């Protein structure tokens, strides 16, 4: 099939960006969205033009690298990662608008690439269990109810892609942060630092310039891992508990 692509091109964080139109021809419905862009890039390089920069690595929907806004929706029409979106979701002759995540805490690096290091800083503020290597107790010494393990797991599947932030009018990072907070709050291992963790992570989130959650639920709608907004309620409760009882 043949498609018209409108792609955001921007040289660097400080440069002005604009949409540039390209034609993609002979696209196969079995190609992934990124393979379609690979094809465009091969053409651009051959013509001596610079290829479109985008982040990607695993191409299996798990590393969280890829991400772009496609026709106004983070990761495009299929509630999956961009690398797992296939061209069979489009039709011959379609016009496709491709833009980077738009959120102030995620400055554009170039074209469709953004800087998501704010997420790393939120995790480093407390998204871990402070256990030193080599001093762990026997793994089966603490039984964990399957239901709790499963719930922790559901939260733990967040891949840190940032679509939730990109989809949110307030650029809130609540879904991402709450997923980690509730994973660790569910597990016995996470108890000791439970209060300090939520306070520090929320504080960091605010410092990074992410907005507040006003329940638009857009984040859940685009999250490729189906992370539930219930985690946000859990985080709010955790936060309240920590502020009321002291960390």
């Amino acid at each position, binding site marked *: 099939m043949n498609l018209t692509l409108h792609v955001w091109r921007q040289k660097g964080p400080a440069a002005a960006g604009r949409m540039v139109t390209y034609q993609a021809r002979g696209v196969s419905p*079995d*190609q992934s969205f990124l*393979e379609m862009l*690979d*094809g465009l890039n*091969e053409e*651009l*390089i*051959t013509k001596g*033009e*610079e*290829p479109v920069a985008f*982040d990607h*690595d*695993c*191409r*299996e*929907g*798990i*590393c*969280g*690298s890829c991400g772009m806004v496609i026709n106004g929706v983070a990761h495009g029409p299929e509630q999956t990662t961009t690398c797992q979106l*296939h061209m*069979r979701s489009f039709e011959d002759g379609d016009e496709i608008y491709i833009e980077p995540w738009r959120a102030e805490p995620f400055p554009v*690096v*170039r074209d469709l*690439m953004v*800087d*998501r*290091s704010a997420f*790393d800083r939120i*995790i*480093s503020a407390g998204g*871990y*269990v*402070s*256990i*030193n*290597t*080599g001093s*762990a*107790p*026997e*793994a*089966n010494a*603490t*039984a*964990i*109810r*399957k239901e709790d*393990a499963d719930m*922790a*797991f559901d939260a*733990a599947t967040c*891949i*840190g892609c940032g679509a939730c932030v990109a989809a949110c009018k307030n650029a809130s990072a609540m879904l991402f942060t709450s997923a980690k907070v509730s*994973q660790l709050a569910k*597990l016995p*291992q*996470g108890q000791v630092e439970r209060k300090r963790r939520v306070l520090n992570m929320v504080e960091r989130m605010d410092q990074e310039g992410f907005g507040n959650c006003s329940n638009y639920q857009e984040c859940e709608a685009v999250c490729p891992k189906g992370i539930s907004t219930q985690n946000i309620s859990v985080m709010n409760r955790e936060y309240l508990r920590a502020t009321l009882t002291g960390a």
Partner: protein
Amino acid sequence: MKVLEERLDARIPDGPLDQKWTRHQGEMKLVSPNNKRKYTVIVVGTGLAGGSAAATLAELGYNVLSFCYQDSARRAHSIAAQGGINACKNYQNDGDSVRRFFHDTIKGGDFRSREANVYRLTELSTDIIDQCVAQGVPFAREYGGTLANRSFGGAQVSRTFYARGQTGQQLLLGCYQAMMRQVNAGKITLFPRTEMLDLVVANGRAIGIITRDMVTGKVEKHCADAVVLATGGYGNVFYLSTNAKGCNVTAGFRAYRQGAYFSNPCYTQIHPTCIPPHGEHQSKLTLMSESLRNDGRVWVSKTPGDKRAPDQIPDEDRDYYLERIYPSFGNLAPRDIASRAAKRVVDEGRGVGPTGVGVYLDFRDAIGRLGAQNIAAKYGNLFDMYQRITDEDPYKVPMRIYPASHYTMGGLWVDYNLMSNLPGLFVIGEANFSDHGANRLGASALLQGLVDGYFVLPYTIGDYFARFKKLDASADHPEFDQAEARVKDRIRTFLSINGRRTPDSFHRQLGQLVWDKCGMSRNAEGLKEAIARIPEIRQEFWEDVKVVGSGEDLNISLEQAGRTADFIDLAELMCRDALAREESCGGHFREEHQTDEGEALRDDERFCHVSCWKSNGTDPDPDLILEPLVFENVQLATRSYK
């Protein structure tokens, strides 16, 4: 090829196998706590190996500089591992033990790995599970609250721990979080989006690396008391593979050029359960976890050219060939065995699907026995992934699978301390060669990465610091300038060629050649042909590659060009290694050396050794050094899974 007389000392401690590591630990020298902060360690790579090493070294008090090419440490390729991690905890009470795990691994590797390393790996496997659980890794559990297990190819016990189909992700997040804790404590400095392009060696010791900032293009020098490469495998030499797109061999190959030995490059693992290739635009192949073989049955039609839909083929016309040929392991036969069996039936014209390149992995019987719901609970995300890629519903139609390049057992040579032949250069995880022999059993790569990073390297690196005089290393060393000049020169050359073909087109062409001639099976004629063709590709590349943009900027085509250039050189080394190894073992199948039944035929008389290649600079003809493999605790036997 010259075979050098040089003897490589693997520094394997004396004493009985099961006491070697403990005794060695007791004998290693220590660095006192307040001296540790005087040492800086470079760790390249943030996968399970690099991430766990960086976290632990920082925890011990060393200063760590951590590098990766992704935008965040959390995205290293380890994240994609699906199936699980092995550890002989014997929680299932099915007779597992360190001995048994050790034996399975030695046999699985076709008797081409080092006994002492393998024993240590299996011995430390139990601690790894404790460590990860303590970090909050949400492993699968039974209703009673204890940890669940499943079995994987090549084992008859259930020793694989898993977190749905996303084990690698959960383990990696565990060590990423441990790393971020140390970032917060100021002990780790992160360098994401930074590519290592050369190694700096002075007086025979590794003292630093040269990197390129992938956003600003800045070429930089980094100096340290030791360099750790945890840069993963080189399976992308085939272009199509299950590896992430960015996986490359550059770090290892640049170290090889600086004098580190490259061992067993021809040992690549071809994984039997990948989604078959579909078209010429394809950029990668997707693995379907091996755990699927616990419940899925592999089959093709008995008659070549049978084009009927799978549900139209009655049972008596189906050939469940793995169950037929290998009755005791059946669908769980090890990867190399299962892969070659698939290739044979496809070569016989019995392959399935539109391209005829594929076999069925069928869940009909399992769904009948356990119900679709239970199958969904076990493999739901894998089934979804399959459906997304192929547009077919595996609950209704059997999956189609075919082997693809997946893991590389070869890598830089290391001794028992995980140090290369260049003092100060350590290599861990998939980037080294040491633990899996000619074939890796499933669920042992994650284990190796974590064991190396959490439990081995942090001790042995201390021993190195305590024994060697501390370097007064600084980036002023003339070797740094030379290495920087090499890197800049190469970048300038790429940018000045201004040819007609994209770097990717060369990579694709190279990959096809290596897959055809040095893939699932090899023969002398094909290998010689490849060794003649690769220099032609190299020459064309250096004359006709097109790299756009500048060096002082984010430049994708420049990155691709650098990686492709190294893949070209590695491919040649692989083929030379495959040609020299005139036997079949594990993932290395030489057609001239097979049994009457088409199984791999080893030659223990001549080839019970590790091949270590020493670069002769840019001369493509390297020298060979042998490390004989000595088996004191197992008897070399023909592998049989029948």
